């Protein structure tokens, strides 16, 4: 087991705790760097989805994992980022790069108006606009706790979904918007090209680094204090309202950036893509990954995105495999065939995916509330302490329900 001998206060807040981390994360980055050369186009495209989900996961981790504010409305933030991208792109704004754009807004309450807007490319605008809206959502959230906050975010997401479907001059309603391939400084980056993969990887890496830096700054410390006890945080002089709004704004802005990439990845967006189910999927990312650190966001994203190909594999190959196994163990040809048929029927039943999702969520919350990252920490500790590992080190303290109505 490795002990880090601390000789300096800076060692508590350094980004890298010890040399080994540089090597392991460097190796991971290098592996991801060469991955597109080794993997097929399908897996490469799945990895892009992992990156995008991981960016959203990081943003939710800031809000839920670190500040302790639940949200079931992140699909709406993603939608705002995606629609900003599609709309500004149709006005001729590039992905990145400075310029000036004229918008003909036909706002319902102002009438037709022209607006000259300086821009740094729509990627920045997707983040800024979503961040502003996130802050606006954060204000009502100030006085809300727990379940009320969740319901408020769900309501917000419903309202955004309806606006996207109805504000046809901008969003083209339910017919949706097409997103052309990405252009920055005159270079075109097609969605299925390897450069888009590197772009998403870079955005994810920068987001994670920025979040790590944020979390070791006073702002991040305030977030964590608010999560652990609002009363205690307040008595230490933390302006709870301001920090909650900040947390919402930062989280929304990051999701908006992810939305921009998401729009490019899908190259077509419509309101019914950004429903409550997508928000739930994002929360699943951090629940499955483990809401105890940024590792959880990335692991959870990988898990959620890879569930789909796994299910397809189960559907296509497992019945044959089981039937082959059965006939090897001495079952007759007819029985084996019947078995294969039955399993195939179960596999292709409509709604199987929903059932599996539900079971996965319940199993994780019941048996591994700290998620995949928590499991990894346990395995690591097992080997570090071998043979002295005690199961009780991670045992949950018994807790009892106390009303939240007295705050």
């Amino acid at each position: 087991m490795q002990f880090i001998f601390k000789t300096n206060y800076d060692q508590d807040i350094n980004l890298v705790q010890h040399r080994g981390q540089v090597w392991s994360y460097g190796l991971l980055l290098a592996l991801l760097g060469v991955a597109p050369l080794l993997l097929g186009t399908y897996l490469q495209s799945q990895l892009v989805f992992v990156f995008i989900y991981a960016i959203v996961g990081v943003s939710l981790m800031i809000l839920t994992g670190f500040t302790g504010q639940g949200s079931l409305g992140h699909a709406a933030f993603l939608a705002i980022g995606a629609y900003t991208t599609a709309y500004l792109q149709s006005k001729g704004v590039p992905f990145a790069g400075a310029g000036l754009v004229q918008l003909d807004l036909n706002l319902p309450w102002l009438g037709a108006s022209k607006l000259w807007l300086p821009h740094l490319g729509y990627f920045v605008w997707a983040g800024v606009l979503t961040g502003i809206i996130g802050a606006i959502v954060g204000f009502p959230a100030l006085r809300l706790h727990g379940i009320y906050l969740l319901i408020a975010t769900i309501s917000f997401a419903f309202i955004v979904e309806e606006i996207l479907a109805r504000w046809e001059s901008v969003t083209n309603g339910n017919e949706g918007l097409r997103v052309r391939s990405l252009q920055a400084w005159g270079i075109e980056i097609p969605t299925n090209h390897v450069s888009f993969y590197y772009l998403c990887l870079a955005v994810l890496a920068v987001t994670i680094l920025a979040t790590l830096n944020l979390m070791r700054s006073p702002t991040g410390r305030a977030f964590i204090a608010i999560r652990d006890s609002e009363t205690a945080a307040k008595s230490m002089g933390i302006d709870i309202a301001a920090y909650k709004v900040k947390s919402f704004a930062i989280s929304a802005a990051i999701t908006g950036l992810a939305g921009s990439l998401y729009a490019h990845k899908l190259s077509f967006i419509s309101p019914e893509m950004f429903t409550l189910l997508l928000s739930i999927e994002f929360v699943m990312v951090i629940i499955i990954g483990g809401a105890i650190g940024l590792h959880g966001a990335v692991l959870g994203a990988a898990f959620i995105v890879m569930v789909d190909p796994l299910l397809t594999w189960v559907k296509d190959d497992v019945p044959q495999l089981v039937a082959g196994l059965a006939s090897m163990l001495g079952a007759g040809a007819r029985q084996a065939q019947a078995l294969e048929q039955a399993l195939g029927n179960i596999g292709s039943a409509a709604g199987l995916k929903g059932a599996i999702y539900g079971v996965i969520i319940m199993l994780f919350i019941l048996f591994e509330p700290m998620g995949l990252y928590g499991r990894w920490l346990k395995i690591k500790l097992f080997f570090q302490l071998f043979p002295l590992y005690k199961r009780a080190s991670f045992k949950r303290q018994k807790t009892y329900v106390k009303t939240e109505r007295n705050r």
Partner: protein
Amino acid sequence: MLDFIQQLVSGIALGCVYGLIALGFVLIYKATEVVNFAQGDLMMLGGFFAYTFISQLQFGYWSGFALAVLTMGLVGMLIERLLVRPILGYPQFAVVMATIGLGYFLRSAAGMIWGTDDLKIDTPFAAGVIRIGNLVLAHDKLSVIVATVLLCAVLYLFFNRTRLGTAMRATSENMLAAYYMGIPVKRVVSLIWAISAMVAACAGVLLAPITFIHSNVGLALGLKAFPAAVLGGFGSIPGALAGGVIIGVIETMAGFYLAAGWKDVAPYIVLLGVLLLRPQGLIGMVARKKV
């Protein structure tokens, strides 16, 4: 004016449906501080059981109704035992996610067992109407209103007047303290889930002639019942009914008088407004914590 009254009545009927589902939320929340996001799906399941007993097994309406309600009581207990008891006391967000997972599972399972078609139950109230002047009231809607008011009254009396009801309120206030006072906490919690699932089953059966039974019906109605429960303060039984009626009337009125699209979002806009002004709901029970 007649239009207005007609809309008002159908709004109240719709609101009573939301109120019934909200009642389920409130019961569980009152006793365990758990918010059950699968309440709408329990309602859907109750409807499907009733369909099996009444239409497929030909038990007759009332005995089929009773059987479905009892079955759902057992299902409620089972859910409490397997899913809720191990995670009581976890952070609320985790518990909410667990019930969302349960909802996913129930929806898919129901879709696989009963198929994805709209199912219908033959009820004694199917076609009848009552006419008061020019006002037309359908029996199926009236049955929902009457049943909701009755259930609310019974449950309200149960919670406020009986020993068991007091025990349930004590359990939600502080589980450990309730345990020390000799309240059988586990049995109380198990019972409250059974009652809540039974209320959901009643809602499902009563709704069957109005909305049909479909595996997704629970999600849509359950999400509308949330604003109702929040408006009512989330811990109050009359509040749930009042909130449900308010949401139902707002939705119907918005659908009738405003442009298309307002109908679906109006309840949520009202909800956000109320949360802004009175975060504890209209009939709130949040007290300041004294440190």
